């Protein structure tokens, strides 16, 4: 397996898109800290980068990469290699390179400018969000043979989690504002990895006071150690479940 991961890693690192992604991330991060005198404001800017750019690049790059390596997968299949090893190696290779790009691009400026719990949390969550969207990309690309459709799915998935989901939640909040739904809202956030990440970081930034009563409920739940582990556990589930589903489908696929 290691040999295949090595081949995939060298192939991805040769790809200039990952390099450009790293440079753009580091430009954004350095300028976020350079423009704001307050590191908390810089952190908020980077938070938005993590919540929009990182998922988009992760899911799109992975989907396109998977479609482009269909030849490579076919070639490997005629060799004495287990099917699930091929898929797992692709996943590890892509995850490692995207996490590395995020770490170099955003992690290093974070470590230098905000060397505290929030900074570390941000790095961890950024890495997790990258891997979550890589797993979702694996699912998108196995659902259809058509590259255009697969990329469409990937963009829709991103759009849903990055924009539509918040809209739906707001809609629900307004419609049901007369009922005590604050606790239910905590459960609803588990349905979107981006929201999980956002709430986790906002709570650590001490701006949760601005979020009103719901914020207090969130703080009550996510602010505790148990809540912290719960939200990380949920993010990990967001990696494991889509990837497991795609792996099951890949093992049964005719190539």
């Amino acid at each position, binding site marked *: 397996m290691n*040999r*295949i991961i090595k*081949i995939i890693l060298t*192939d991805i690192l*040769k790809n200039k898109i990952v390099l450009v992604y790293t440079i753009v991330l580091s430009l954004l991060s350095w300028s976020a800290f350079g423009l704001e005198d307050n590191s908390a404001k810089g952190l908020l800017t980077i938070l938005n980068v993590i919540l929009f750019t990182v998922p988009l690049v992760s899911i799109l790059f992975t989907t396109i990469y998977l479609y*482009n*390596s*269909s*030849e*490579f997968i*076919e*070639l*490997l*299949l*005629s*060799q*004495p*290699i*287990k*099917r699930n090893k091929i898929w797992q190696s692709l996943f590890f290779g892509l995850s490692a390179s995207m996490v590395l790009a995020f770490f170099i691009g955003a992690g290093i400026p974070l470590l230098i400018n905000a060397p505290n719990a929030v900074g570390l949390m941000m790095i961890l969550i950024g890495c997790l969000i990258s891997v979550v969207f890589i797993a979702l990309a694996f699912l998108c690309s196995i659902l259809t043979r058509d590259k255009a459709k697969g990329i469409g799915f990937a963009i829709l998935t991103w759009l849903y989690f990055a924009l539509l989901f918040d809209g739906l939640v707001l809609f629900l909040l307004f419609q049901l504002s007369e009922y005590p739904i604050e606790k239910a809202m905590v459960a609803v956030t588990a349905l979107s990895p981006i929201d999980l990440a956002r709430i986790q970081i906002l709570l650590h930034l001490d701006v949760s006071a601005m979020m009103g009563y719901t914020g207090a409920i969130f703080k009550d739940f996510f602010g505790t150690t148990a809540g912290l582990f719960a939200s990380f556990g949920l993010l990990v589930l967001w990696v494991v479940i889509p990837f497991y589903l795609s792996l099951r489908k890949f093992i*049964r696929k*005719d*190539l």
Partner: protein
Amino acid sequence: MIEIKNLTKKFGKLNVLNDVSLSCIKGECIALIGPNGCGKTTLIKTILGMVLPDRGSIKFNKRSIVKEYLYRSSIGYMPQIGRYPDTMTIGGVVEMIKAIRNTNQELDEELWHSFELDKMADKQMRTLSGGTTQKVSATLAFLFNPEVLILDEPTAGLDPLASEILKEKIIKEKEKGKLILITSHLLSELDDLVTEIIFMQEGNIHFHKKVDDLKTETNETKISKAIASILKQKK
């Protein structure tokens, strides 16, 4: 060596393989022939585990291939249309496959040299013509001295010289006692190669016979004519 029993595969509503049973023995050179879309490539791909059958079993060296993968190390496969990562070079692909196999057995690089691929090892795969891609596929199929060779339309797209080199290589390997499975439409090319013929039609095996029996039955000396006369009789 390869035992196939009641193999059935459907793609949607299309019955690609319909209760196919056959057995292939070591030392034979078997031609798999039949019209386009009769299921030859699907049959080959199920043997390789690339297509998973709906029903039926395949045994390789008396062991079922379900969820197995190591048996593929004793198969050399040359696909009909070789698809390789575009940006890799010829040398890169061969090196990669060597790295994946990671064997210390002796490699058979005869075709690598006789096809003169060594002289263009740093050409990218996407710049290659169909014929050169076929040469790379053939080289990879023979590289690890496999016991079984599965060649899907090996000579299609090769120039006469290259196709002659490949044919000689196939005969040489046959004489070493390997099992060789060839699909082809060029019946005239098979004459000096094959010992058995499997004729497939619409997902069924129409017949599976020794070439000599076939020739005596039909009083013909060429495979192509023997097949033609059988098909005429049927009509």
